[in-house]
């Protein structure tokens, strides 16, 4: 789930509440926009409590963009995250209240926590402890080479969508896209076979090849197509938005989207694939066999190479080189002033040279009026007799084609030869048309003459053909019948009408039979994705960001029993062993950490278990120092003083 998908499902009150959270106070970029900008997130992280920051670090490394059961998270809090249960709860609450983490509830009440996938990518760029990819890019001495991308996945996708638009989104009787459509789109995507592709499961895997399913999946995700009233339709506004803007940004967005959709199957995968996005563009990175790349890593880099976004090459020694050919994290704020791109060069022989970042909108226009030749540093199209005639057949006459071309050429006059050629080719096309019409035939000319005079019938007629026949308005057939009956000329029922009539009788009988039997055919619904996503949380109820009332600020002492002796949570003291045991038990029950003084030093203990079977009793847990934890087993005489620590929500405080 991405951030926008979340925002579409929460109320405006919740949005306002999050915006006023202290973390976002006086931020240059407000929430939620800030969630997608690493610079802003860095500042936001500094405002969070120490436990939230620790949880975030743990989350990025271990949970990633995948949902996790809240209970499972709490169970892992001590050994994995180095957080006491109470600290973990406090951190979760704070991060949810700040709109950084979200929760969904399954139908039986279980809660799943998740971070939106695009936010995860942004956080990946912000927090980079223990991140060898960040280390790699910082220490890179790789050669920076200026090489241009060729036929990127985005461009191929655009061509596939243009073809889809041409062929239409109509489904067959079985509710599937026609084979011709599927084959064309698959061919245009031209994706090399890879294990990454092989593991994706299309919803109709017996019918749709993976590339086709990907194309439609992405179109749905981008909002380019929608399912309404039993059919798919293009969203003109979404399409205009996608086509507009800087092409470099669109490439980056697509690279990230594909990473989110197909490279986030596990937290480990997500850590790697999002880490790759951090590598400096155009810089060549070399790994050797000892770097511990596993088969998935290699497949993913190869997949990116196949998408035209990167260059990957394995060497004979088990290592590889990798380089981004695009900047995968360019964002809208990087958009160049020349967002509209360079103009297309139009040659007299009909060849069109499209500069590298001319813009998707320009390419879309050219797809409608020209034949694609190839993609290279520039893309090459050609206006041919076939392309001009094809455009004309789809309703685009010569003037419109020339206008599109002129716009693409940036206002530079088009070569005369080409203008004349387009006019000639378009004029030859569409001098005929094939239409489905409804005819009214009359037995005699006199009847036809009379019909054309009657006011009630005249308005239903479109055109007279010869003496005895009319084209009539198809949608007014029923009214036409009535008027003809009224005028004394009840029309003969034709074959189709007779068949329809018989069929409707059958259908009625069948339906009534089914009603009696209590069964009913389900309606065909549109798909929310064309590729199965086992981690999808969209189907669950999204909870509002603030989890517990009144707990988004101040301390969380209310979670803890009010009958604890005040001294236990006060300054450090020495206690009798039995009291120590009691305190340990209480801390275990409530998930609180314990501060100890041992050997004159103050340490934090995250108790895990009390071992009362032995004498003296032992407490096992983790000593936490800085961000590291170390497992220990302590007997009560191994420390001098102690207290229970109640976590606070205040920023940058540890609660001590």
């Amino acid at each position, binding site marked *: 789930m991405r951030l926008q998908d979340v925002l579409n499902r929460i109320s405006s009150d919740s949005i306002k509440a999050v915006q006023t959270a202290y973390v976002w106070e006086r931020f240059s970029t407000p929430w939620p926009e800030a969630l997608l900008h690493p610079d802003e997130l860095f500042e936001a992280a500094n405002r969070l409590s120490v436990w939230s920051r620790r949880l975030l670090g743990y989350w990025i490394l271990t949970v990633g963009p995948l949902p996790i059961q809240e209970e499972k998270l709490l169970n892992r809090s001590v050994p994995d995250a180095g957080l006491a249960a109470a600290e973990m709860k406090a951190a979760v609450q704070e991060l949810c209240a700040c709109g950084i983490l979200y929760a969904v509830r399954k139908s039986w009440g279980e809660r799943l926590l998740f971070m939106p996938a695009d936010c995860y990518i942004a956080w990946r760029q912000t927090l980079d402890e223990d991140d060898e990819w960040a280390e790699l890019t910082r220490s890179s001495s790789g050669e920076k080479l*200026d*090489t*241009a991308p*060729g036929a990127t996945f985005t461009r191929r996708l655009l061509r596939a969508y243009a073809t889809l638009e041409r062929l239409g989104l109509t489904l067959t009787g079985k509710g599937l896209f026609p084979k011709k459509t599927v084959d064309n789109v698959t061919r245009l995507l031209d994706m090399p076979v890879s294990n990454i592709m092989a593991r994706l499961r299309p919803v109709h895997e017996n019918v749709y090849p993976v590339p086709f399913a990907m194309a439609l999946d992405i179109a749905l995700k981008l909002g380019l197509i929608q399912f309404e009233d039993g059919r798919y339709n293009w969203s003109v506004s979404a399409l205009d938005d996608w086509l507009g803007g800087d092409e470099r940004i669109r490439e980056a967005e697509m690279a990230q989207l594909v990473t989110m959709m197909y490279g986030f199957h596990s937290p480990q995968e997500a850590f790697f694939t999002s880490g790759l996005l951090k590598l400096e563009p155009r810089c060549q990175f070399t790994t050797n066999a000892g770097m511990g790349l596993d088969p998935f890593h290699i497949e993913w880099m190869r997949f990116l190479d196949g998408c035209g976004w990167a*260059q990957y090459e394995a060497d004979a020694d088990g290592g590889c080189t990798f380089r981004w*050919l695009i900047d995968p994290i360019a964002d809208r704020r990087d958009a160049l002033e020349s967002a509209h791109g*360079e103009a297309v*060069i*139009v*040659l*007299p*022989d009909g*060849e069109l*040279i499209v*500069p*590298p970042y001319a813009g998707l909108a320009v390419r879309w226009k050219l797809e409608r009026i020209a034949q694609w030749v190839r993609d*290279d*540093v*520039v893309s090459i199209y050609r206006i041919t*007799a076939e392309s001009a005639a094809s455009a004309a057949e789809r309703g685009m006459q010569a003037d419109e084609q020339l206008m599109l071309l002129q716009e693409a050429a940036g206002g530079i006059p088009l*070569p*005369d*030869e080409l203008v*004349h*050629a387009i006019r*000639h080719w378009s*004029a*030859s096309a569409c001098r005929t048309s094939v239409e489905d019409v409804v005819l009214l035939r009359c037995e005699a000319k006199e009847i036809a003459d009379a019909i054309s005079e009657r006011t009630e019938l005249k308005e239903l007629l479109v055109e007279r053909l010869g003496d005895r026949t009319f084209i009539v308005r198809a949608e007014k057939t029923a009214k036409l019948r009535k008027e003809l009956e009224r005028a004394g000329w009840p029309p003969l029922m034709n074959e189709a009408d007779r068949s329809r009539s018989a069929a409707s009788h059958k259908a009625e009988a069948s339906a009534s039979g089914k009603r009696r039997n209590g069964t009913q055919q389900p309606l065909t619904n549109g798909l929310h994705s064309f590729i199965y996503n086992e981690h999808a949380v969209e189907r669950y109820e999204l909870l509002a960001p603030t989890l517990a009332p009144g707990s988004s600020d101040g301390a969380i002492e209310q979670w803890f029993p009010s009958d604890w002796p005040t001294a236990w949570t006060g300054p450090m003291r020495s206690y009798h062993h039995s009291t120590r045991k009691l305190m340990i038990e209480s801390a275990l029950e409530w998930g609180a950490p314990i501060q100890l003084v041992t050997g004159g030093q103050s340490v934090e203990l995250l108790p895990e278990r009390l071992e009362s079977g032995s004498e003296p009793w032992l407490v096992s847990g983790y000593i936490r120092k800085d961000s590291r934890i170390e497992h220990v087993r302590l007997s009560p005489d191994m420390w001098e003083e102690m207290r229970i620590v109640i976590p606070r929500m205040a920023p940058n405080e540890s609660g001590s």
Partner: protein
Amino acid sequence: MEQNLKPLIVLSDMTLLFDDRTTGSEEARAKLSGFAELMKNAGHLHTYRMTPLTLWNAASAGMTGVQVIETLCRFSKYDMPSGLADKLKRLMDRFGRLRLNRLAGPGENSLVLSGDEEIMQELQEEQSLQSLLGSRGSGEPFRLSAERRGTVKQELMRLGYPVVDAAGYREGETLPLALRGQLCGGSAFTLRDYQSQAVARFVQGDSAAGGSGIMVLPCGSGKTIIGIGVLAALQCETLILTSSVTSVQQWEAELLDKTTLGNDSIGQYSSQEKRVRPVTIATYNMLATSGREERDYRHMRLFNERDWGLIIYDEVHMLPAPVFRMTADLQATRRLGLTATLVREDGRERDVFSLIGPKLYEMPWKQLEQQGQIAELRCEEVRVPLPESAERNYWIGDSRTRVRLAAENPNKTTVVRHLLDRHKDKKTLIIGAYIRQLKSLASALNAPLLTGEVPHEERAKLYEAFRRGEERVLVVSKIANFAVDLPDAAVAVQVSGSFGSRQEEAQRIGRLLRPKQEDNSAVFYTLVSDGTMEVDYALKRQRFMTEQGYRYGLTTVKAQEGEMN
């Protein structure tokens, strides 16, 4: 140089798109021509191509891969395609590392291919070379028969391995001759700069490119003179093959005019006479004529009749299949192909390269025009409406009928008259494809008609009359496509053509391009029936000229009056 003002776009297949509108483009163009060849010139974006041969030519002139890459980077508007720099370096580094020599010894007819062991290993692994080169021991060269020389060189070139061919060629029987410094008429004669360059490129000896190959130059640029220049440089007995008897006669005339050769040294081998001399000129038709037995091409004996040191293929794009096959066996003899349009609608240009040799020299049409070496040309397409009755028949007819109706549009006659009136003081050719149409035009214009049926002597007389100005208009059939020398035609009106043939269009235009004494300009009109298939054919036909940098203006004739706008 600001990025968006740089003139070059470099593509991954070694194609270069050059924008001549940008500042500094002249400097870039000069550098490009050192390692790339101009492919087309449409509009302001010219297409160049780096090929292994152009790169090796650059290497032989001392250029390195690094220098080529630096030039490309310096002038390139966008980033270089991935992997191209490595490819260029690899290709150029290979130059000089393979060598073909003749095995020493009397009667020895074998060659040896030797070079860097690393490259030799690579060649050993190439499947396509295994049957050609056989096997060898480590450190040993490959041995191959002389007959495979051409095929091996072509295959090596295709694979990206240049070979320095030091095996030499048959010298042929020596024939002493020189170019005249002064012609019979008294005027001075010397080769033009580009003609000298072309000759030098051919005779450059043992380079990877020298020895045999094709020269592509515009009509009217003096390809015949280049052939004669090569002959004079090599000083050997020569067989010249050309397309028609008229061309044979013209070659003979030029040889007598421009060289010190006498009548006894030059022979014609055609249907009219068969004289084999130290320089013999024959037609392709003659050689491709078979006897009673199938494949008995008895005139092919001509190839072995004398010890030729050079074979010249004039209008090499017309090389017929049987002559192709015979040519494959002549690898030890230098072969020179001449043409203005190495374009074949059947796409068999590659066969010409592989059997004659690679393209050694090319001179763009526009460049020669700018230098004044050929006439300045204007092209115009005139759209002529069909009369109503013909239009009706056009739409109900099949495609064959439509082609004829469009081509023989009677309204074209009116337009031709108008054009003749416009250029009343210029010698004009009316060229067409259909005899019936041409007869009708000749009759209507009271002009002589020249077809393949007209005997050679009468044809020669008509040419002479046209040359002298006694006849201002000639109506000519397809024979105008071939090597016909009409030095003073300044206007041509094409009334019909062979479908979408680019070559035919270029060849017909070529009839106008010889430089003229006073007004060095020419106009080519092509009459096209509006709204018919002829328009589509015209667009195809014009492509070659458009790629040479020529633009066609468009005029539409008004339907009613038949008058031009």
